[in-house]
Every structure is written in structure tokens, then in C-alpha cells.
């Protein structure tokens, strides 16, 4: 609903991320759009001609462009977030602060509490168990908490889970079928690898049920709000099931109270699976823009995959590969990859390619090279997603071919130390997420969480990108660190660029959407080191403030 009245937000400092007009103290807006960024003094030409209202609720805060995570997975969040967390590290969730639980005794004490809290007829799912802290786990120990209520204890890694008798009975898993099988320890109630796949098939009707999935998405809305986001990229719609996810997205993320927009990037493979082929998939994709709403956008982007998961060491590596000699995985045959990429390239799509290893990246770049030769495109926004392992020479190719990078820098934090020891050695492990070189080469470089792979916190990611500190507290390859300013660009204007929305969001200037993230402290004052500790007071989405804990 339009109104003639202007709203002027004032702030201690406005960081615009517009290089030509970097700082301000006031922003005039109307109907959710920025009219001018400046000071109350410089805004006078507007204010003298229109009725206006000064909103000074953020007068002592620092206003930044609304944060953008260009790559996360609402569907995975919707599965994880309804579980109760019992974790060795502290987790700040919007609905609770999870205190660290670091001993077996405390784990079971907490499990008893959750059992007592939860409605008697509901299964109890926990996530975060890890044997290094929480000791042995098995069915008998869980039965001691409750034999009847289904209890499912999901490991921190997601790669295994444990069940009590109640859960096995609930899911109909009997000794008759499961005893003596590999990767299922029936006696211990433990399911891992293929056994986990079996358990998940049994659990899916529950964890992907309408009610639970929507509850998970509503929790994601809170998590994203608390992280300061005003735009998310759902960078693979269809991970579980395109139609099911779309229904949930429409029901929850399009709600008028959701304080962000979601850019939906379908996975080409998932759509082809549902539509019965890549030709039909392209036709279907062409029609998706008709579904656009104020908060949900299908801007003709598509997600492709080359190699396997970084966390599982299935990235495809060039020589000399992994220390133990194992091979990475292709998620699609290279010749099919180029065939699929060509369809979307020739149809004018912006292509995002999941690449984790340097050989996966090589395939993405060879493909782009061929496509550019066949049918040159400028401003194509072909984006390398994740960007785990790369070589310096590949950075030059990315630049030469006009591609972009959207990196998961959290790899550096969580995995650089362990991958140096058990993976690929120090030299290459320390250079993972080589984002400093990208920026130096003039490549537009965003950073993302890939949530649930890393916390959905742009400031935390910017902290990793600018400090390159790993979990051990060591600085890893400072040559590849971003400056503070580059790190902030990577969660604002450059992330907008990756999503093809830089004309609308990502910086604060006349004409853009009034999307802000309101901070308690000035990033330029606290420096890269202090980024992760800056408290977020509120977000503003299209001119409407959404206070945090308010």
C-alpha cells in the first residue's frame, strides 16, 4: 500500500558499500525504497517537498546494507532445526541458547530434561552428540531414558544416528530384517553410512512431513533474521523434492512477516528428474518467473554440480590428489555436465556451479571456455560455488573467462587443520578458499554459509575471510585473507552481484530497496578481528524494521 509520507532513518553511521558515497548518517525512504542517502542536512530538498517522519530508533546504531547469503539450503535447515541440540559447543539459536554439554553425565542429564519437557506422544530427536565429549552411545543407554518414547540421537557429523527401542518399534525396524547387517548395529541401535540411508528412508515420512517441515522453515526464518539477512539464495531448490520444497517455501517464506526475500535457484538435475528430462526441465524453468512474489524470486539462475562433497573428502582433485590415494566423486559425468550447461548457457541463464576440488573447478572452467568459444556472452555471471581447492593459475582463468566466485570460507575455519593432517597436506589445505587472490584478480567474490554446513552468520563468515583463523586459533594462509572492506563487500554488494540483484540490493543508494542490517558497533572501528562479536540489533526489510529480541 503506497503512502506519500517519507520515512527518514537516522544512524550514528551508515556504511553504504557504495564506493562513490561511502558513509552517511541518514537515509530517506518511501514505500520501502531509498530516495537518498546522506545527512539530515543534505536530505533537505526531499524533506522540504514531502511530508516525512524521522525514525530515530537506530540513531545510536550503525546501519549497513542488508546482509545477503547467496548460498544456503532452507530445505536442510528445515530438517535440522526442529531437532533439539545437545552440543559440545555453545549455539546461539533465536529460541534458545544451547549451553555446552561436554561430559557423558551431562549429556544424559540433558536428554532426561528434554524427555521430561517434550509432549509425551512426540518422538524426541537430538542433534550434536559426539563420542569425544559424550562418551559411548547405544540403545540400552537410551532405553534407560525411555523405552517407549522414540528417541533418535543424531551425531554431530550427520553421518550416524542411534535409536532406542521406542524408535525402532515406531519405525518398524525389527531384528528379523536388520540384525546381522553391515553398517547397522542392531543391538546398539546404531545406523551409519548405508545404514543411515536406511534409517532416513524410514524417518523421511516424519521429518519431511508438512507440519514438521514448515516448523523447520519457520525456525530458519528466525535464524536468518538473527544473522542479519535480508536476502537469501536458496542455491538448489529440489534437494529433496522440488514440489514439496516449493509448497513449504510458499507457505512460510512468502509470509508477510518474513523479514527477507529468497532468491530461488533450482537444481537442474532435480528439475530434470521431476520433469522427465533436460528439455522439459528447461521449459519448466522458463515458466518459473511467473511464480515470483514480493519475497520469492526465480530470476533465471540455475544450479549445476561438478564434484562431490567437501566435508566428505569427495572433492575431485588434480594431481597429487589425497594422501591416502582415494578418489573424489563426480556428481555428473563431465560430458553430461557440458551438455546441460550448454542448454542453460544458450538460453541465457546465469549458471552457478558447485565445485569443491580443483579438478571439479577445472571441469567448470573448461566448460565455460568451450561455451564462450561457441557462443560468447558478456556479463554471464557464471559463478563458481564453494571454491574449496583451487590453484593460482585457475584464479587467472576465472578472471579471464569473466566468472564470479561465491566461496564457503568456513572450510578454512573448520577443516584446514584436519585436512592438512588427514587429507591433502599443509600446502594445499592452507590455501583452501583462495579468496584473496580472487579479489586481487578483479573477480567479484562473495562468501556464503551453505547453511547447514556452516552457521548462518554473515558476520562470522566475514570474520573468517578477514582473519583466516581456524578452530585451533591459528592463522592459515594470511596471503588469502580479505581486507575488512572486501569481506563486508562479500556479504553485501558482491553477494548481490552473484545473485544478479546488484541494481536492487547490496548497497545503500538512491533507488535501491531499503534493506538494512542494524549493528551495535562499527565494523571499521572493531576491525576484522571483532566482526564476529558485533551484535545485530535489527534488520530493515523494504523499509520495515524487524527488531531482534525486540
Amino acid at each position, binding site marked *: 500500500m503506497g503512502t506519500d509520507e517519507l520515512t527518514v532513518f537516522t544512524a550514528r553511521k551508515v556504511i553504504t558499500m557504495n564506493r562513490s558515497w561511502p558513509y552517511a548518517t541518514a537515509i530517506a525512504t518511501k514505500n520501502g525504497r531509498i530516495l537518498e542517502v546522506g545527512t539530515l542536512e543534505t536530505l533537505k530538498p526531499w524533506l522540504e517537498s514531502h511530508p516525512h517522519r524521522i525514525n530515530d530508533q537506530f540513531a545510536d546504531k550503525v546501519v549497513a546494507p542488508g546482509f545477503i547469503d547467496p548460498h544456503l539450503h532452507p530445505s536442510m535447515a528445515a530438517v535440522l532445526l526442529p531437532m533439539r541440540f545437545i552440543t559440545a559447543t555453545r549455539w546461539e539459536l533465536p529460541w534458545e541458547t544451547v549451553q555446552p554439554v561436554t561430559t557423558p553425565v551431562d549429556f544424559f542429564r540433558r536428554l532426561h530434561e528434554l524427555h521430561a519437557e517434550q509432549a509425551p506422544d512426540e518422538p524426541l530427536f537430538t542433534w550434536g552428540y559426539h563420542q569425544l565429549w559424550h562418551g559411548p552411545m547405544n540403545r540400552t543407554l537410551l532405553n534407560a531414558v525411555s523405552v517407549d518414547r522414540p528417541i533418535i540421537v543424531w551425531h554431530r557429523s550427520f553421518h550416524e544416528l542411534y535409536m532406542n527401542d521406542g524408535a525402532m518399534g515406531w519405525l518398524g525396524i525389527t531384528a528379523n530384517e536388520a540384525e546381522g547387517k*553391515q553398517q547397522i548395529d542392531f543391538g546398539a541401535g546404531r545406523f551409519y553410512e548405508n545404514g543411515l540411508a536406511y534409517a532416513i528412508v524410514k524417518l523421511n515420512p516424519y521429518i519431511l512431513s508438512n507440519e514438521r517441515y514448515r516448523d523447520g522453515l519457520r525456525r530458519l526464518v528466525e535464524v536468518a533474521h538473527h544473522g542479519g539477512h535480508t536476502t537469501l539464495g536458496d542455491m538448489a531448490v529440489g534437494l529433496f523434492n522440488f514440489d514439496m520444497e516449493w509448497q513449504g517455501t510458499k507457505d512460510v517464506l512468502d509470509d508477510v512477516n518474513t523479514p527477507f526475500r529468497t532468491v530461488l535457484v533450482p537444481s537442474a538435475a532435480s528439475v530434470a528428474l521431476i520433469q522427465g528430462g533436460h528439455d522439459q526441465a528447461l521449459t519448466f524453468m522458463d515458466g518459473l518467473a511467473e511464480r515470483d512474489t514480493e519475497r520469492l524470486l526465480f530470476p533465471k539462475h540455475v544450479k549445476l554440480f561438478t564434484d562431490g562433497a567437501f566435508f566428505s573428502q569427495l572433492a575431485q582433485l588434480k594431481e597429487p590428489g589425497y594422501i591416502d590415494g582415494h578418489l573424489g566423486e563426480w556428481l555428473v559425468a563431465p560430458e553430461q555436465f557440458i551438455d546441460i550447461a550448454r542448454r542453460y548457457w544458450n538460453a541465457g541463464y546465469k549458471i552457478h556451479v558447485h565445485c569443491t576440488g580443483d579438478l571439479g573447478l577445472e571441469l567448470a572452467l573448461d566448460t565455460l571456455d568451450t561455451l564462450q568459444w561457441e557462443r560468447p556472452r558478456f556479463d554471464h555471471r557464471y559463478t563458481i560455488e564453494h571454491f574449496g581447492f583451487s590453484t593460482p593459475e585457475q584464479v587467472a582463468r576465472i578472471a579471464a573467462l569473466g566468472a564470479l566466485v561465491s566461496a564457503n570460507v568456513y572450510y578454512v575455519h573448520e577443516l584446514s587443520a584436519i585436512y592438512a593432517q588427514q587429507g591433502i597436506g599443509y600446502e594445499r589445505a592452507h590455501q583452501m578458499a583462495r579468496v584473496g587472490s580472487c579479489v586481487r584478480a578483479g573477480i567479484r567474490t562473495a562468501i556464503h554459509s551453505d547453511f547447514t554446513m556452516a552457521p548462518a552468520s554473515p558476520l562470522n563468515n566475514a570474520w573468517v575471510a578477514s582473519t583466516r583463523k581456524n578452530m585451533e586459533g591459528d592463522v592459515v594462509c594470511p596471503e588469502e585473507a580479505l581486507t575488512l572492506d572486501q569481506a563486508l563487500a562479500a556479504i553485501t554488494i558482491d553477494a548481490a552481484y552473484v545473485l544478479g540483484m546488484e541494481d536492487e540490493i547490496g548497497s545503500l543508494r538512491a533507488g535501491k530497496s531499503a534493506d538494512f542490517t542494524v549493528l551495535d558497533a562499527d565494523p571499521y572501528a572493531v576491525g576484522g578481528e571483532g566482526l564476529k562479536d558485533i551484535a545485530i540489533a535489527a534488520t530493515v526489510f523494504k523499509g520495515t524494521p524487524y527488531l531482534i529480541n525486540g
Partner: protein
Amino acid sequence: MAEVPFIVIGGYLGAGKTTLINRILGDDHGLRVGVLVNDFGDINIDAKLIQGQDGPLISLANGCVCCRLGNELGSGIETLLNVAPTLDAVLVETSGVAYPAKIASYAKTWPGLAPGGTLVMADANRIQHLALDKFVGPLVIEQLRQADRVLVTKLEKDNDWPSVQRWINAQAPDVSIMQSHEFASQLLFEIPASNHSPVVSADVTFEAKTFTTSDSLDLDDIESWLVSLPPEIHRIKGIFYNAGDPKHRWVIQGVGRQRTISTGEAWGKSPKQTEIVVIWPTSLTPKFPDGILEDSTGLQPNRKSP
């Protein structure tokens, strides 16, 4: 709970996996095979054979069931086992970039399945070139190494056969190799166990007998002989010299109690010799009738190699 052998058909793109599956689905072998495929589009099922389609499932007149794989192998297996609980085997067509051993390992976990072995297809014209490819070279070699049996397709000249075998054995020293067209559906149960899958493929092994004679036979005689065969006979296949049509081979095909007799190619210069193979599960001891056909040898064409 009865466990169904889970047989993996692997190999790089274009190696002939789908062709093999089409053959298995179309063959009149009397086995109820459940097949998990990546895409119905490539599966060429005779429309006459299709009894019904329900979402990801197609049921065939010969008892086979074909299931399209979604995102996950696990849910495909569950769908198949729920719909068709009495299958003789489950076959999975892997994607061209899968490691077959990883897929095969499902059989050791999944309730209702038992390991059934791994076939890896290799295109004779392309495999050596692919092995040098910078993206998939290590993958295609690893696929061969994870095979219990490599089936070679598209061999153009018989002369090339020894060198193709040598090359494959150089990559995968212990693997058994055969040409795809020599591969009969029964052999699915006979995939040799290798160091990669220590569990022997399946409990089902077969015995065979070959009946031969140079005399011409009347159609009536042969029909009554077929009827007199013991019920344990699982499969029958062969040619005979029909007194009523001495110019052509006559072909006998049969699975279970279903047998057909039809005209085949001309004898040409080949000796007119009747040769009929019957096959039965090792666990049974059929009693053969005396009569028109002599039992030549206890040939055992499909026995497992030691």
C-alpha cells in the same frame, strides 16, 4: 526373511548398461527381476509387455518390475521391495560416474537384500581412450577394478578381443571378462566372487545337460519330449533338425513351463545337428525321460569358475 540378490551394473556413460538392461527385461528367462534405472527414457520396453505404470514403477507381463531412481538409491530399493516382495533379483543400473563397489555395499546393509555381485560394462572402442581422460581416467579404471565381471561391448573385430582382454587385465588383474553378447540372463546369478566382494554372489547355481542327435525329428516327437521333461527344468534352449523342414534350423526356447518352438535361420553348410541344453538349479535332481534324445555329456556351461 528371504534375501534377494542385489546385482550392480556399472560402467561409464555409453558402455552399454541400458542395452543390457533392455535385454534382461525383454528376455524370456522366467526370472522376476526388479530393475532400478536412472531414467525410463532410455529403457526400451515393448509396449505389449507393459502391464501397468504407477509413478516410478512399471510392471511387465513377464513378472519383471522396473523402478526409476529418484534422488536416493535407498528409497528406490524400498519402493521396489515393497511393491514386489517376491523378486528373484534386484538389479541396479548405476550412473556412469558411480563407483560400483559403493553401490554394491548397500546389499550388505539393506534388509531384504544380499550381495549379488557387480558387473561393469566397458565399450571396447572407447575404454582405453577414456582411461587417459583427465577428468574420468582414474574413475573408469577404478570401475573396472571394482567389477566381479567386466562385460565388453561394441567389439568390432574378433581379432581385437585378445588385446582388449589383455588391456583390461592389466588394469584389473583378477577380474573375469566376457563379451556382452555371450552373457545370458542366468549368468546374473553366477557373477564370480572376487576379492572386492567376498560374499559369494547368490545361493542359486545351475546344472546343465546337453542332448544331441544327428537324426531328424518329427515336430510331434519333440513336443511330446518337451512335455515329458521333469518340472525342475528351469530353462531350455537349443536347435533341432526338423524332418518336416530340413532347410532351416528350428529353435526351442523356454523358461519354466513356457516353451516355444519356431523356425530359425537356414542350416546352410553347417551339419544338421540337434543340440538342446536344459538347465536346472543345482539343489534339484530332475529325472529325465528315456527317448528320442541321447544325453551327450554332462556339459555345465554356466558353472561358477572355481
